[in-house]
């Protein structure tokens, strides 16, 4: 449908007002909220994510597109809930305690949302108790942790420990990222995976939930 393609294009371009208008028009044409989500908004974010992966667009452009998607999502959210449309999975995200850097985490969160995941963003400087509560309360499928400092990345292990102690470790996948983090560090602390960039984080999440 042409209008869904237009929604995708306008999301990619970050034209929030046009996205709003197009969604209203699509709804008036009795196109379902689910179709608008998966064939319009998510497709738009997929395009920009693919461009980002191939170094064809800049980080702020991804976030500008994400704003358009969020604005569109707000309009159709009640309809999705009514129709009981499920997300691809629930991801709890946060930058670990002691670390206030959140740019990388925010980009991953946006790209995950764009790929159809529900993201519960705990913010920056997140203590293990907050991760734990979010996992319990939201029945999350994945926990994503970020750290930019060598001093704060050590805290990731503490979060994993607390998940183990509470008997939740087998129920959630744990992924980590951030400038000082490596694949081997992920293995050392018992995380399920490491992603060097936002696009890889989305691929990793999909892979882990499908495995």
């Amino acid at each position, binding site marked *: 449908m042409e209008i869904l393609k237009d929604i995708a294009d306008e999301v990619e371009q970050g034209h929030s007002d046009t996205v709003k208008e197009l969604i209203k028009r699509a709804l008036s044409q009795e196109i379902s909220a689910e179709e608008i989500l998966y064939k319009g908004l998510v497709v738009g974010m997929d395009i920009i994510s693919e461009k980002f992966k191939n170094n064809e667009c800049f980080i702020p452009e991804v*976030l500008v597109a994400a704003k358009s998607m969020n604005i569109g999502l707000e309009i159709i959210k009640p309809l999705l809930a009514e129709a009981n449309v499920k997300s691809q999975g629930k991801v709890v995200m946060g930058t670990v305690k002691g670390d206030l850097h959140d*740019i990388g985490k925010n980009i991953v969160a946006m790209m995950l949302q764009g790929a159809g995941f529900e993201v519960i963003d705990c913010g920056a400087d997140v203590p293990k108790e907050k991760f734990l509560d979010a996992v319990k309360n939201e029945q999350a499928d994945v926990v994503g942790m970020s750290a930019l400092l060598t001093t704060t990345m050590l805290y990731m292990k503490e979060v994993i420990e607390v998940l183990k102690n509470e008997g939740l470790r087998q129920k959630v996948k744990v992924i980590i990222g951030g400038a000082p983090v490596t694949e081997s560090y992920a293995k050392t602390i018992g995380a399920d995976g490491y992603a060097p960039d936002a696009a890889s984080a989305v691929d990793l999440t999909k892979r882990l939930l499908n495995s």
Partner: protein
Amino acid sequence: MESGNIPVLIVNEDTIPRAYEKAIREVWEKGVSVRTEYDRPEDPPSKDATVVIIVREPFSQPRFHRSFADGLGGLAEYVMEVVHGAHDYWVKPMEEILKGTKSKDTRWTYTYHGRLFEYRIEDQVINQISLMIDRLSRAGHTRRAQAITWNPKLDPPTDDPPCLQRVWGRLCDNGTGGYVFNMNTHWRSRDLFKAWFENVIALTTLMRKVAEEISKRMQKQVQLGRYVDISDSLHIYGSYFREIEGDPEKGVKSFFEKLESRSFKERTWDSDFVKPYFIDDGVGKGLKPMLEREKEMPEKVRKAIEKELRLMEKDDYEV
């Protein structure tokens, strides 16, 4: 670099985005290869040069490049951090700073705003920007209007000393009864690829604030002149090379191919486009979300940011 000399490069462009692109090309092509403490063993050495960047019209449009390591809302928050001290309360207490690398406190050791507006020496706290404004308002030709950041007691022992070292400014007659405010900034060390652009947006915003205040005091027109940015070590870290070189086998474009595949308009934004994102970028950043999120921000700072927000919303403020 056979001689062992660090190259000295000069970039002279009309706008900030033009200067930014040119600087990246220059350092990439002519910079010396130097290994830094931030390079991982598997990374190539960084590219590095001493660079003087002249931006002839720092407020001409388009003022914003699209290539930087944050969103527009995040950039707005950074500007508030530098100009209004939004994150001065994230700085750790003095006794922790004095522990240097032995401190376990992961909070910050400084902010630019803290050092420029509240420089601590002996038992005094000195607002150097206010002194600059006073001095320039009395004698615009002065060569002493400057603000430093370096603290020789606090900075050498830490892992994270300030990159910006000094801000210097001077007024010159504009020939029609008013003045032109010229500003230079001096940097010890600088991440060109992921920090330069945001630094310059924040520092030129400070430049405008200083010029406006001088204009009010002198009751004369003060125009914004050229901005000069001098870095002893302006570098592109080895860890960014993958992003700059791309990966042709995997269809990943190089940074320069990305630039060349778009017109200049398509790789920049003007202030009108950016302003609503500065207010609220829709993904949790910007002035409004910042005020909602940061409950512990001191009241005085909150008020200053709320004022900025009101001006932006009234369309009375160009970012």
